[in-house]
C-alpha cells in the first residue's frame, strides 16, 4: 500500500510517545488514544473504493512527507500579517495545532468562559473529559478521526457554564506555519456549552507560507439543554494544503445550533459536519459555501442524525466552482424510529462557472419514522445568460455582471454569519477571489 510510509511514521511517533508516558499510560484518556491508534492502523488511510471517499482521493496527501513535530517561531509579527480586521472578542491562537496562550486574548472573565488545555483538563477536569471527549466522534470506522484521537495532544477545552450568555464571541484562529517545510498537525478541541448558555464560536484556518500543510482537525461541540450555539468554520488555506476536519455536534433537549462552513481557499478540503439531535424540540441550521478555483478540491459531508421526536433541521449549501476545481457535497439525514414529527430540509445549489469544473452531489435520506416531513434538493447549473445580458443591456460589463450575480448567490450564506468581523472578512475575501477569476 502506498500509504505505509506515513502510517509507519505516525505509528512509531505514537509508540515513542507512549514509551515516554511512564505512569500516565493507564488514564482513561490514554486508553482511548491507544484504542483509536489500533483502529487507525487497522483501517489505514481510505481509498476511493471507500464509499465515503469516492470522489476525494487522499493518495496525494499520504505520498507527501510531513514534519509532525515542527518548531514554529511564529509570533506577534507573523500573525499581524494575517489580519482579520475589527475582530472583537476572545481570540485564541493555535499554531500548527498547538494552543498559544501568550498570543491569545481573553475578554470574558474566567467564571463565564474557561479555556484549558487538554493536558490540564486530564488532571483538572477528568469527569468532563470522561463524559464528552471522544464520546460522539466515530473513532471506529473513520480513519482520520481515529488518527486525530490517537495523536492530538495540544488542543483546548472551551467550557461555558450553565445559564451563561457570552456577549463576546470565541474565535479560534488556527494558523498553519508552513514557511519552512511541510507540516502536519492535529487540531483537537472540545467545546462544552452548559444548560441555557449561549455563545458564538468561530474557527478560522489559515496557512502562513507556501509549503504544504496537512491539518487533521476534530472539534467536538456539546450543546446543553436550552443552549444556543452559533458556529462558523472559515477556511483560507494555500493551494498546497490538505485539510481533513470533522466537527461533531451533540445536541440536547430544546437546544439551538446554527452553523456556517465557508471555504474560500484550500488545496484539498474535506469537512465533515455531524449533528446528533439527541433530545426533543431541537433546532439545527447548517449553511455552507465553497468557491474553489484552479485545481482546488472541496468536499463537504454532512450528517444530521434525528434521534428524538419534534426536532427540525435545515440545511443550505452553496457552491461556486471555477477553473478546474472539483466539489463534493454529501448530505445525510437519518430519522430514527423514535424521531416522529421530524422536519428536515436540505438544499444544495451550485453554479459552475467554468467548463472544466465539476461538482458531485449526493443527498442521502434514511427515514425509519413514519410521521416526518423531509425534503431535499440539489441543483447544479451554469450562470443565467439571460440575467447577464439583462445587466449588460443596462451598461454593466459582462465580467461585472457575472461578479454581481455570484456575490448575490454567495450572500445568502455569508449574511447568516452573526460575528461582524468574520462576516466582513469573508465578504472581502469572496470579492477578491471572484475578481481574480
Amino acid at each position, binding site marked *: 500500500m502506498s500509504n505505509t510510509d506515513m502510517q509507519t511514521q505516525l505509528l512509531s511517533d505514537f509508540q515513542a510517545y507512549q514509551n515516554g508516558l511512564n505512569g500516565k499510560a493507564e488514564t482513561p484518556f490514554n486508553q482511548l488514544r491507544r484504542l483509536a491508534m489500533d483502529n487507525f492502523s487497522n483501517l489505514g488511510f481510505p481509498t476511493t473504493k471507500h464509499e465515503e471517499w469516492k470522489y476525494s482521493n487522499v493518495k496525494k496527501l499520504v505520498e507527501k512527507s510531513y514534519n509532525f513535530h515542527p518548531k514554529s517561531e511564529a509570533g506577534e509579527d507573523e500573525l499581524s500579517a494575517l489580519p482579520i480586521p475589527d475582530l472583537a472578542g476572545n481570540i485564541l491562537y493555535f499554531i500548527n495545532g498547538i494552543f498559544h496562550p501568550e498570543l491569545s486574548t481573553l475578554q470574558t472573565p474566567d467564571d463565564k468562559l474557561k479555556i484549558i488545555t487538554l493536558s490540564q483538563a486530564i488532571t483538572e477536569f477528568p469527569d468532563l473529559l470522561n463524559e464528552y471527549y471522544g464520546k460522539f466522534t466515530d473513532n471506529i470506522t473513520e480513519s482520520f478521526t481515529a488518527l486525530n484521537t490517537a495523536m492530538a495532544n495540544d488542543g483546548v477545552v472551551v467550557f461555558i457554564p450553565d445559564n451563561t450568555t457570552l456577549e463576546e464571541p470565541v474565535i479560534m484562529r488556527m494558523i498553519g506555519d508552513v514557511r519552512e517545510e511541510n507540516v502536519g498537525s492535529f487540531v483537537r478541541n472540545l467545546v462544552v456549552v452548559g444548560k441555557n448558555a449561549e455563545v458564538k464560536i468561530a474557527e478560522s484556518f489559515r496557512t502562513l507560507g507556501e509549503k504544504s500543510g496537512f491539518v487533521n482537525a476534530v472539534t467536538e461541540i456539546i450543546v446543553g439543554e436550552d443552549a444556543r450555539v452559533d458556529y462558523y468554520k472559515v477556511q483560507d488555506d494555500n493551494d498546497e494544503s490538505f485539510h481533513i476536519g470533522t466537527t461533531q455536534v451533540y445536541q440536547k433537549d430544546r437546544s439551538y445550533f446554527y452553523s456556517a462552513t465557508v471555504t474560500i481557499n484550500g488545496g484539498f478540503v474535506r469537512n465533515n459536519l455531524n449533528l446528533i439531535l439527541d433530545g426533543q424540540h431541537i433546532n439545527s441550521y447548517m449553511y455552507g459555501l465553497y468557491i474553489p478555483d484552479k485545481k482546488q478540491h472541496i468536499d463537504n459531508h454532512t450528517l444530521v442524525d434525528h434521534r428524538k421526536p419534534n426536532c427540525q433541521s435545515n440545511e443550505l449549501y452553496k457552491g461556486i466552482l471555477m477553473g478546474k476545481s472539483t466539489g463534493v457535497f454529501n448530505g445525510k439525514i437519518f430519522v430514527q424510529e423514535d424521531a416522529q414529527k421530524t422536519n428536515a430540509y436540505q438544499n444544495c445549489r451550485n453554479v459552475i462557472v467554468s467548463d472544466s469544473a465539476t461538482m458531485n452531489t449526493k443527498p442521502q435520506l434514511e427515514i425509519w419514522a413514519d410521521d416526518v416531513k423531509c425534503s431535499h434538493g440539489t441543483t447544479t447549473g451554469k450562470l443565467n445568460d439571460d440575467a447577464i445580458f439583462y445587466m449588460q443591456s443596462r451598461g454593466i460589463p459582462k465580467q461585472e455582471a457575472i461578479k454581481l450575480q455570484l456575490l*448575490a448567490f454567495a450572500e*445568502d450564506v455569508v449574511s447568516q454569519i452573526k460575528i461582524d468581523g468574520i462576516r466582513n472578512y469573508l465578504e472581502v475575501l469572496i470579492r477578491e477571489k471572484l475578481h481574480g477569476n
Partner: protein
Amino acid sequence: MLKISNLHARVEEKEILRGINLEVKPGEVHAIMGPNGSGKSTLASVLAGREDYEVTEGTVEFLGKDLLELAPEERAAEGIFLAFQYPVEIPGVTTVNFLKTAINQIRKYHGKDPIDAAQFLKLMKQKAKSVKIDDQLLRRSLNEGFSGGEKKRNEIFQMAMLEPQLGLLDETDSGLDIDALRIVADGVNELRSANRSFIVVTHYQRLLDYIVPDFVHVLYKGRIVKSGTKELALELEEKGYDWIKAEADAAEASVA
C-alpha cells in the same frame, strides 16, 4: 440617430430578420407592429446586442458609430435602452444596487467619477414617484416575485434613471391594465424630447393612443412590409393583419 440598412440576422440555422431598413431621427417615435413571430423582439435584441443572434448582412449606425461593433454594455453606455418584453429576475441583487452599479459603469465609460450617494437617492426618489413605483419594491431583489405590471413599470423606471438617447420598448404594454398602461405611457411621454427617440414594439393600437407615434411600421416574416403614420395602426386594429400578410406573401411570390 439610428440607421438600419438591409439588416439580416439568424439564430442557429433560421433566418429571422431578412432585410430590415429603418431610419429614426432625433425626437421621433416609431411604432413597430406585426403578428406574433414576425421578428419584433429579435430586432430589439439585435439592436441591444444579444449574442444569440448572428447578424449575417447589413449595417446599423447609431449616433455616427457602427453599433454592431459594440458590446451590449457599450451600446447601453452610448445611449441605447431596451425595455424587455420579459424582464429577467435577478435574485439577491436589489433594483437600487443594480441601478447604482449600472449608472456608475456608464459614468466610468464616459470617464466620470461615481455618482454621489445622496444625489443618486434623490434622483431615485423623484423618478420612482413619476412612474408610481413603491420605494420598498426597489429594495427587493430585482424583479423577483414582482407582478407582471410591476416588472414593466420597473423597466420604465430604469429607463427614466438611465436617460437613454434611444428607448426600445418591447411590448411594454402587454399584460397591463388600463391604469398601468397610462402610467407607463406617461413615463415615456415625460422622457420625450427633441433629441431622444423611441421605437415602440406593440401588438395593440391602444398604447399608441397614449404614446402617439410619428411613424408606424408593420414587420412580417423579418421585413418591414408596410409603413405609415398613426392612421395605419387604426386600420390594423380594425382589419387585422390578414390583408397585409396576403399582400406581402403575394409580393414575395411574384419576386420568386
